[in-house]
């Protein structure tokens, strides 16, 4: 697909009339913000927290587009230190009885309780007993990960061809089974869930589109095969990161309520606050941002390396470490 400008289109989306069209520029701009956040989160962490607050004519799709950009870039730059790297087990002997484990076997992913190694070549778990040679990878599941036990067949995992099209590296299974706590999106679960279901594809006339959720992959306790982000309801009493050993690298606050309620409790090096200029509670959120900025160093447009989409405004500041 070619854009009107003659350049190749970045994304394909549904046009609302049963056809497809090039994704609008503003959508691509939000994806770029997420990618920029993934690249710069480690650098900004050394110099205090950076808050990028954007007011948009409408905030629909902004947070999930930024989350998409983050996850895509984060995976692309894999190798950079994750905020909370998974606890890889080098040898199965390192496991202790009663520990919760995540195992990737030849044909499935399993989450359950580890019991013991039997006869030197069989691993016994709450999810069954297997030959140790079929275990491709083993990880300890930290106590603060609220994951349900279960097993999931790799042959039944949908969306792998779509991921092969969309990902920068050609290994969808590694992406699907990897863990990352580096991105938290805070907002309305109802809205975010609908937005994550939005179909998207690459710009080269893809045979089929896939949901944004396939890339953003928020943590799902009932399906803990792998995740690239955590989506948190703005209405929680305690933050999801309360028990984590490290704060997430980037937090996206989606909407006025999420900003007013959580901005002061975010300790991520980079916080993206997205406001809809038409939503209720906007003035309260702006007032919280103004209070935050009062004790911070304002950032100039040239310091940010990202231009907001047309119709949006940006307030950027760095709190003193």
């Amino acid at each position, binding site marked *: 697909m070619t854009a009107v400008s003659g350049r190749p289109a970045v994304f394909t*989306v*549904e*046009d*609302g009339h049963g056809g497809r*069209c090039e*994704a*609008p520029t*503003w*959508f691509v701009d939000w994806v770029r913000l997420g990618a920029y956040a993934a690249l710069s989160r480690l650098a900004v962490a050394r110099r205090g927290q950076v808050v990028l*607050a954007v*007011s948009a*004519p*409408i905030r*629909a*799709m902004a947070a999930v587009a930024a989350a998409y950009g983050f996850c895509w870039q984060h995976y692309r730059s894999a190798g950079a230190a994750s905020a909370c790297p998974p606890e890889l087990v080098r040898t199965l002997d390192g496991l202790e009885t009663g520990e919760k484990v995540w195992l990737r076997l030849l044909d499935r992913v399993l989450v359950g309780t580890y019991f013991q190694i039997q006869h030197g070549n069989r691993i016994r778990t709450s999810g069954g007993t297997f030959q140790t040679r079929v275990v491709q990878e083993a990880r300890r599941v930290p106590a603060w990960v609220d994951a349900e036990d279960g097993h999931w067949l790799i042959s039944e995992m949908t969306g792998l061809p779509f991921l092969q099209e969309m990902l920068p590296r050609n290994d969808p299974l590694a992406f699907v089974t990897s863990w990352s706590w580096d991105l938290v999106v805070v907002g*309305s*679960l*109802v*809205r975010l869930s*609908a*937005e994550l279901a*939005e*179909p998207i594809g690459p710009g080269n006339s893809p045979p089929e589109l896939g949901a944004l959720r396939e890339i953003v992959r928020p943590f799902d306790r009932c399906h803990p095969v792998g995740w690239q982000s955590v989506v948190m*309801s*703005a*209405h929680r*009493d305690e933050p999801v990161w309360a028990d984590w050993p490290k704060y997430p690298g980037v937090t996206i606050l989606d909407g006025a*309520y999420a900003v*007013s*309620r959580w901005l002061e409790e975010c300790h991520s090096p980079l916080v993206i606050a997205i*406001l809809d*200029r*038409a*939503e*209720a*509670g*906007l*003035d*309260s959120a*702006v*007032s*919280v*941002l*103004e*209070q935050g*900025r009062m004790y911070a160093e*304002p*950032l*100039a*447009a040239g310091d*940010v390396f990202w*231009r*907001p*989409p*047309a*119709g949006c*405004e*940006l*307030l*950027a500041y760095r709190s003193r470490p």
Partner: protein
Amino acid sequence: MSLIVQADGFYRASVQISPERYVVADTRSSVFSDALTRLARELGEDASEPPWDQVMAAGRAARWRSATEPVPFGSPSSAAAKPFTELLALSSRLRGSIESYRQNLLGELVETAEGVLQSGNEKLAEAVLDCLHDGERGETCLVTVGRRAAAAVAGWFEEIGEGYPVLVPRPFMAGRVWDLAIITGAGAWFPPQMLTTPRAAQTTLVHQSWIRDFVQFNGVFGEPATVGIRVSVREPRPRAGSRNLVAEVEAPELVPKPDWRAVAASIPRASEDDDLVDAKLAVLSGGYGVLLPISGDRIRGLHPDAPPGERVVSLKLTAVVPGSILLLRERGTEAALLRTLAASHLGADRQRIQDLQADWKGRLREAIGREGAGNVARALRARDAQTVNLAYWSSDDCLRPQRDADFAVLLKYLGIRDPAPFIAAGIALWRAHSKAGHDLTRALEQRVEQLDLAPLEIHGLQELHPEGAPSAATMTAFRVAAVSAETIRVPRHSTRRPFHARGAAWLE
């Protein structure tokens, strides 16, 4: 429709920023406004005192309503004629009992008010209709500054068979994109995003020519924005040779404001032994006031436009602004309600837990009475307590000090050798309180689901009684009309409780 395509319509509209202005020459309303301004200047602080306070409130309401409500006074739907009638009635009672200079100014005000009444507000109404007729039906809407004006205009449109939708700012902003939106009033009276985030290909402001409006509007981050938005209004060309013969008034000056002195005088008195806290005074719809403690953290609020199940929210007290909706108990505070509800979650240990709490609070109050709060605080800090908040700890609202370590230091200071059962009881109380809070949120959410929130939209307040909950759980949703800039010292027990306030009439 695809969410991306849907959102794209709003992004496209936001790039087409071209609001224009249409001004209506209306000499009668101008001379009335001028007479009101001159009387207010002469009265000075007396304007807030009886008998002038009611005259001035009615006068300001008359000026505001006739400027924001493009409805002929002859229409049964008009709400603007009422304050004029009230003004004339109040003024006639004053005649003969005031000094001659003020008597003259009042006479001018009455004469000009009668002039406006005779003109029937027809000019503004006609101008708005003319502008609406420029647009295509179904693609054109009218936006008014508030719900009262919207109801009046919608009623009048029904009488005369004009089917244009009449909206107020939030639904207009949250709705669709129009071809033409006619905004009645000055831009300064609306949230600036009405003009920086257009929801129509063409937006026109219509108001009287003596109202001096802003010519430029900034985005929500204002001047500090890193990448900002600035919109200029396309002004009407002045006619050749025309001279402005009317006295102009800055648009923000016309917006009705509470009489803060009168509102503050309405704060209920509390007993003398109450500890004092800093608070901000807020005026609520329906003629109520409330004190918002600065040291407080959060207050329960409502976002009617949020998805179901996410409407009852926790608002930061310092971020409560005009337009916020607060959920308050008309009798007592929410904290007192939660204490009652939490008791049922304590189970068989209830009496023991409550006795332990009463024990340490009693000892603390005795110690403060005996040693003085300053000495107790110093002693606790000397024992490595990090946070010491004696006034709050000894109040009924506090369940226990937040940090276990501080609680243990306090208990030992109070002569309790084994703090463990007290700390465990404190944790049990906190959990029960938290559960009661969740239950109340869920019950309120369910009630909000079932209710038509039209009364809240129109009148700014609505009672919410969760089904199956005790009558004490009834809360009222109040829209905040104004928040004072100044902080005042008030008794802690008078905060978070709505009270009937003088000086809060005619605000919409």
